[in-house]
């Protein structure tokens, strides 16, 4: 039984930026099995489809899962209205996460907006060998900077409006960084156009790059084929691959960005 349906109590909840919430939920079975880059699927009130949320942290000992989410619509609004002590119906851990093999390698981690949370466990793995480049609309929307720093990673904050850190896109900051620094592997999660840009930079330099894709989901476990993204088949043919089972993390070279 690889998948678990668990009802967990919210034991902590904070609004870490306007409309963005950081919750810790007691889910001992899922927390024990979780891996960086995986996600869970949560019932939100009376809505039929579960909402997928990435795992931002997991503590197998305490049996807790950490998730950071933004209010984007009805379901996440419902979620944001839950309070400490309320319970959530959660299925997980789901999907194929990031591969973390050798923490002596130099890793660069690029996160855009609400794509940032699933990257935190990677920074924890690489510690001082990680450089984390994150981009947000504006300074007040920036999240998790202290967490990345606490993990020992170097951080480069970018904002679209220049209200904090580097004034510009993460891809620009990445290009600069790669010009002056060693890098063995790149991890990224965020808007599709950003990941596509990151992937192009990585591929141009022959650096391995793992991307975390997002798609609307049905079952969340690989059974319904609703959540596919375009990938390149063995012979280069375009094909559709399940984000929930074969992803959400893919080797950037597999992804067909224009599908």
């Amino acid at each position: 039984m690889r998948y678990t349906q668990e009802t967990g109590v919210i034991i902590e909840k904070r609004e870490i930026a306007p409309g963005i919430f950081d919750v810790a939920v007691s889910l001992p079975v899922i927390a024990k099995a979780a891996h960086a880059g995986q996600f869970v699927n949560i019932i939100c009130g009376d809505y039929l489809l579960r909402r997928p949320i990435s795992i931002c942290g997991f503590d197998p000992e305490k049996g807790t899962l950490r998730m950071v989410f933004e209010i984007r619509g009805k379901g996440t609004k419902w979620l944001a209205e839950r309070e400490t002590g309320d319970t959530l119906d959660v299925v997980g851990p789901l999907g194929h996460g990031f591969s973390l093999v050798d923490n002596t390698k130099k890793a660069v981690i690029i996160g855009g907006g609400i794509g940032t949370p699933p990257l935190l466990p990677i920074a924890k793995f690489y510690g001082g060998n990680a450089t984390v480049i994150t981009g947000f609309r504006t300074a007040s929307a920036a999240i998790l900077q202290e967490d990345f720093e606490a993990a020992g990673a170097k951080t480069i904050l970018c904002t679209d409006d220049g209200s904090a850190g580097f004034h510009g896109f993460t891809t620009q900051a990445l290009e600069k960084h790669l010009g002056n620094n060693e890098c063995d592997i790149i991890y990224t999660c965020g808007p599709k156009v950003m990941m596509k840009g990151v992937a192009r930079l990585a591929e141009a330099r022959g650096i391995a790059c793992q991307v975390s894709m997002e798609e609307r989901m049905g079952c969340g476990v690989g059974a319904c084929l609703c959540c596919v993204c375009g990938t390149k088949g063995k012979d280069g043919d375009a094909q559709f691959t399940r984000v929930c089972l074969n992803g959400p993390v893919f080797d950037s070279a597999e992804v067909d960005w224009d599908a």
Partner: protein
Amino acid sequence: MPDMSVNLCGVKLKNPVIAASGTFGYGMEFNEFYPVSRLGGVACKGTTLKERQGNPPPRIVETDGGILNSVGLQNPGVDRFISVYLPWLKKQGTAVIANIAGNTVEEYCEMAEKLSGTDVDIIELNISCPNVKHGGVSFGTSCESVAEVTSQVKLRSKKPVMVKLTPNVTSIGDIAKAAEDAGADALSLINTITGMRIDIKTRRPILRNNTGGLSGPAVFPVAVRMVREVYKRVNIPVVGMGGISKWEDAAEMMIAGACAVQVGTANFHDPFACVKIIEGLEEFAKSLGLSSITELTGTLKEW
């Protein structure tokens, strides 16, 4: 304890709950929640003669009480279904229903022939998929084409043939009768109702395929009505589906006339939906003192 088994055109199901085609893959994923041997049967993902990539994403959108999907029959083709997926599923110990969709009558027949040489239990003729350009739903909307595809497949199939009907028709009863007369061993319904949702910001359909098929609790009353209409019209077994999400719904569908039910969209909300429905039905049968769950079927007293 009530006997929960039902006989579906000669195939014994250990209980009347079948996972619906397209929502349950080949059972492998849900087998990571509970042994799929708990189920009466699994209707496999719609299979075509050749591999199909399906429609581009987004393929799903939530609506009030339902979802629209436009997967478009992505599947590895009937040969790989037979060599890779069927053996695994058959080994689990549940009835296996192969769901097939062709572009032409001949394609349906070829698949039926191939499946006749396997240990598939039942062939479900999907003449009702709204998400593909050719074949699919177009076979299911006229009595003539339903009769044609059914009778041809029957000539070439050694397995019982269950015809899956689309609700997108003026008279489901006429279509059902045409399938029965053409030799169908059983009928299943409803497939999805064609729908559309639009993103008012971009003024684009949310589904990349523009339209999709509506399923889930929203369609349940329509499904109950159609199952009832078909039950009154034919003498072959009817498998009811469409919006069943709890045992009460399954019981309602059986009372309307279904000898078994399929459960689709509900699996997305609650991966244990099928198991809970089986348990609930059993409790219900017990509380009524039934010796067999089949005693429910068609017991509706109309006004």
